């Protein structure tokens, strides 16, 4: 049982690495596209929405295979790690961008009007008044998105990255006890993700004491 745990833990590094690189793509994408979608109208808004919808509506597995197998044919060869971080990051970013946009839209117009009355420029209103409030209100969604990202990293095993899921499959090929191996894999993900969920609940209660009992993960 100890070898199983040690084997799976060997993959933890890749799991966390893909998560971290994924966030490098997800956070800027969510902020820029969410804000642009909020601020613009007409053609720009349509194009931005189309890009977001593409990343949100595509099946992640299919995109992962698409980028891994199809781009080389077009002469663009990326490493498995880059492909994974790009696909998982932009998919997560697509979801988070909608949280940013919805958060900005849900603010009362009086917030912006007060900023204008004080003579603040539009960017100043956005960065000093609107975004900080929207980000606090959206923090539970971001925690959900982060957990989704960690869980989605299990897919990188399908494009040859040696993450926890890959290690589990590897051990299952030589060991005869799939019950122990796959139970350990589920537990390993739980041990990584559940503390994030608990921290998120704590943070939610902390920043918004008047919101009452926080909802689940």
């Amino acid at each position, binding site marked *: 049982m100890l070898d199983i745990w040690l084997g799976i833990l060997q993959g933890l590094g890749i799991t966390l690495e893909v998560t971290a690189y994924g966030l490098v793509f997800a956070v800027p994408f969510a902020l820029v596209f969410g804000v642009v979608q909020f601020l613009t109208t007409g053609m720009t808004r349509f194009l931005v929405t189309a890009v977001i919808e593409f990343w949100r509506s595509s099946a992640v597995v*299919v995109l992962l295979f698409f980028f891994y197998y199809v781009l080389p*044919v077009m002469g663009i060869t990326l490493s498995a790690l880059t492909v994974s971080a790009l696909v998982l990051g932009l998919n997560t970013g697509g979801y988070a961008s909608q949280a940013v946009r919805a958060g900005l839209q849900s603010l009362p117009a009086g917030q912006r009007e007060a900023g204008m009355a004080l003579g603040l420029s539009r960017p100043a209103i956005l960065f000093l008044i609107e975004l900080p409030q929207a980000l606090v209100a959206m923090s539970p969604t971001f925690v959900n998105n982060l957990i989704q990202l960690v*869980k989605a990293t299990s897919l990188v095993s399908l494009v040859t990255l040696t993450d926890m899921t890959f290690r589990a499959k590897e051990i299952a090929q030589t060991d005869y006890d799939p019950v122990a191996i796959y139970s350990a894999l589920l537990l390993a*993900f739980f041990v990584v993700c559940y503390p994030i969920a608990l921290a998120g609940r704590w943070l939610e209660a902390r920043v918004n004491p008047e919101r009452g009992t926080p909802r689940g993960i």
Partner: protein
Amino acid sequence: MGFNFDFALSTIPTIIGAIGTTLLATVLSCLGASALGFTFEMIRRGGGAPGLAVRFLIDFIRSTPVLAWLYFLYFVLPFYGIRLGAMTVGILGLSLYYSGYLAEVFKAGIDAIPKGQQEAARALSVTRRDTVVFVIAPQMLRNVAAPLGNYLVSILKATPYLAILAVPEMLGRAFDIASETYRYAEPLTVAGILFLALALILAYGVRRIEQRLLAAGRR
């Protein structure tokens, strides 16, 4: 070896042919997940030791990836002598995974119903079971329709995972073509476009139904 459009077009009929399997897996998994999720939520509301156990199970499911659940069921069930087809295991896996999310949907749907409804039912000495079936459930259905629709789209986007268990859904078919012809780019592009189109159509339908329900609620 560039991208061959004629070959890509020739793969469309085979991959579209699997659309029935994809949709069947989506609908059955959604029904299974709803039934299981509602049961979980009812046990959780009942409280006590079973309620606490289910509360932990829901958190556990929501903290673990769907792929790990599919592998778990696929390799663990035969270990205990339970031999099921890949499609059955796939639907069981998706049902179990999404039940954790749908339990939360049902929780929110029930919480949104004023407590007076339950109190009125108790005052009229309606049994707990009848209260759930005739008072809570019909009102809850309208509250949960929109999020349930969103999860239907999520489940559709999760069906390509079943290709890993060799279920012949759209991605599975695309891989069959790829392994026969050694050309991955074309069938995978076609599968990607078809999944995207299907998800957008389904999401549009869900949004229409949602708008109609909101309009009905506003009367």
